[in-house]
């Protein structure tokens, strides 16, 4: 068998034989059909309709009329759009601050000899809990009058704040919850990355006199970089899609801070589903898609500088 794998002609032969067993190449398409149909129905088709609608004036019900790039020119002149874009960028930066936290926590959890699974479960719980339920709980924690956070702060003499009703704090308050919610999945990815690092590297380096900190920066971080990269890309995408936390934690007719804290997806929701302006909403969605694409592309370009694939 070893010679088979090594010699190209042998491989060629096997492949041809396998092809002969199947009636036609059509089989392949049949096999991928379930996934392919799902992809077209739930991703490609909605994308195409959204793209089409972004060039139309679409009323609440019924067909729309073609208006060219009107939605886009209106969008670019809309202060609320730029504000939402800035807010989304800020949420992204805040959520990215959670990545180093996740790396350190993942490394610490690996050090734990007993109860490692327990820690993983504890950190993963928010991931499998409904975001709406999580947001409701945090809304209570952040409550300016009866909230747990202000109570704890009062014990150490720090004056309480209206964390989700005061525009000075809203974005950061929501960002902290975002970090906490994404921690679990990040820890799983980073934990798997940590375990794939060969143990002998650490043994060899400690023979050479490297300390724990030096090992972390010289061995762990470089070899973990593909996982860190994946976590970073996913974090940016999910941060740019931030919606549910704002919807539950900030939405109140009495909350004047909401206007200053809307993300791009929240603005999309308001336009498309509250104001019934679907064309404009679609244009926002397309711009968001392009922003996410661009952000991801930039990250893939930058990865050459810091990501090491063995």
């Amino acid at each position, binding site marked *: 068998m070893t010679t088979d794998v090594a010699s190209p002609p042998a491989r060629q032969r096997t492949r041809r034989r396998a092809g002969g067993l199947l009636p036609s190449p059509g089989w392949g398409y049949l096999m991928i059909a379930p996934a392919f149909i799902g992809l077209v129905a739930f991703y490609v088709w909605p994308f195409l309709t959204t793209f089409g609608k972004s060039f139309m004036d679409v009323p*609440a019900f019924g067909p729309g009329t073609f208006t060219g790039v009107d939605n886009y020119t209106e969008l670019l002149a809309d202060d609320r759009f730029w504000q939402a874009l800035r807010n989304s960028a800020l949420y992204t930066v805040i959520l990215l601050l959670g990545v180093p936290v996740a790396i350190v926590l993942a490394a610490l959890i690996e050090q734990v000899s007993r109860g490692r699974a327990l820690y993983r479960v504890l950190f993963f719980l928010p991931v499998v809990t409904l975001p709406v339920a999580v947001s409701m709980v945090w809304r209570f924690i*952040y409550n300016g009058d009866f909230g747990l956070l202000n109570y704890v702060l009062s014990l150490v003499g720090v004056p309480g704040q209206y964390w989700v009703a005061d525009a000075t704090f809203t974005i950061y308050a929501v960002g902290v919850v975002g970090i906490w919610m994404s921690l679990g999945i990040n820890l799983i990815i980073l934990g798997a990355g940590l375990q794939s690092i060969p143990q002998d590297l650490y043994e060899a380096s400690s023979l050479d006199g490297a300390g724990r900190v030096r090992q972390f920066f010289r061995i762990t971080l470089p070899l973990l970089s593909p996982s860190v990269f994946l976590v970073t890309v996913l974090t940016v995408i999910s941060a740019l899609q931030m919606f549910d936390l704002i919807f539950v934690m900030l939405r*109140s007719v009495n909350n004047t801070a909401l206007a200053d804290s809307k993300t791009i997806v929240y603005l999309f929701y308001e336009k498309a*589903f*509250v104001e*019934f302006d679907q064309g404009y909403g679609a244009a926002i969605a397309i711009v968001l898609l392009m922003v996410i694409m661009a952000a991801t592309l930039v990250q893939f370009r930058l990865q050459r500088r810091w990501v090491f694939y063995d």
Partner: protein
Amino acid sequence: MRHGKRWIAAAAVLAALAATGCGSSGGGDGKVTLSYATWSDDQKPAMEAIAKAFEDKHPDIDVQVQVLPWPEYWSTLQVGAAGRTAPDAFWMLADQFPAYAKGKQLLDITDAVKAAGVDLAAYPKAVLDLYDVDGKLYGLPKDFDTNAIWFNKALFDKAGVAYPDDSWTWDDAREAARKLTNPAAGVWGIAAPIDRQGGYYNSIYQAGGKVIGDDGKAAIDSPEAISGLQFWTQMHADGFSPTLKQLSDTEAVQMFMDQKVAMYFSGSFWAQRLYGDQALRPNVGVAPLPKAKQRATMISGILNAGYAGTKHPKELAEFLIFASGKDAAVIQAKSGAVLPAYQDTQQGWLDAMPEFNLKVFVDAVDYSVPLPIAGDAAKWTGLETQYLGPAWEGKQSAADAARAYNTAINEVLAQ
């Protein structure tokens, strides 16, 4: 890890694409199954009892009551209607109604109502008027609500203030709020949220103003309307109400239930919830809203409406007529859930909660004003926090806020 790179790229593209997609959910379908969408958990038992009573008369029809959470009720309904999967019957509100009626999404039951011999005089005219589009009937009123003062007798007693009554003017309300406010005890005289239906619309009309003028344009920049807004902004300026930030974190009704505010001007629809709180119940009183130039309260009501794209229009029309009819009204009244719209069935609602002086809400029909609706109401009412918030927070005068909001409303109406 080398092919891991490609996998990451694929995952990233998928996640990005997901940002543009949106899902939808559908209603049920059987032999003859009708779905009936509502947003109130409180009213679910009553709605199920009505469905059951209808099924007893029509064994071939199965009615399924669905409770959708309020925050997503309208987006779910809209997506459902656009995707042809809307529920058959559903609750409709006046500010959403024009978009659905003009969009031809509602089942026209004019003929079915006529054939069934329903007397429209059995419903409050103001509520029917809210849902009047070129003389066609797109449903029948399910209930109605008016506003009054919910007040806490224990807090009034403690402060030595006489209970509100029908002689009260704005000055009496202000004076009471001043005496009731006790910062040391964490008690406020009144809750002053940005609340059009229970709050500032009422005071605008009490002052002799209007929200939408006779010419169909916004009118909240008139001196009378501005004084109606000032009634509320002054409560904040004087510190008689929890701040807007506090009311954002904790709803006004919750503050009232926690016995932190002595007065809450709001609708009859809270009756059941307040009554259900055993500790609170003996403390709750009801009095008419205070008058200024005149007495006024908003009146609104839910419409039982049907989806034009239903598979069973005949059965649906029968159900809608039944659900807004006398038998259903009696069921609703007994449950205490809400004030039924059908005439002379309100006594059951009063009897369900005898400790509360609920007759105030029924009597209020006499001086009630239909909730002002014009053009794309959902769009311009959605701007209220942005324009009125600064006045409530004392950052801007009520007059300046009213003028700015007036302009914004007219811009929406002109679209």
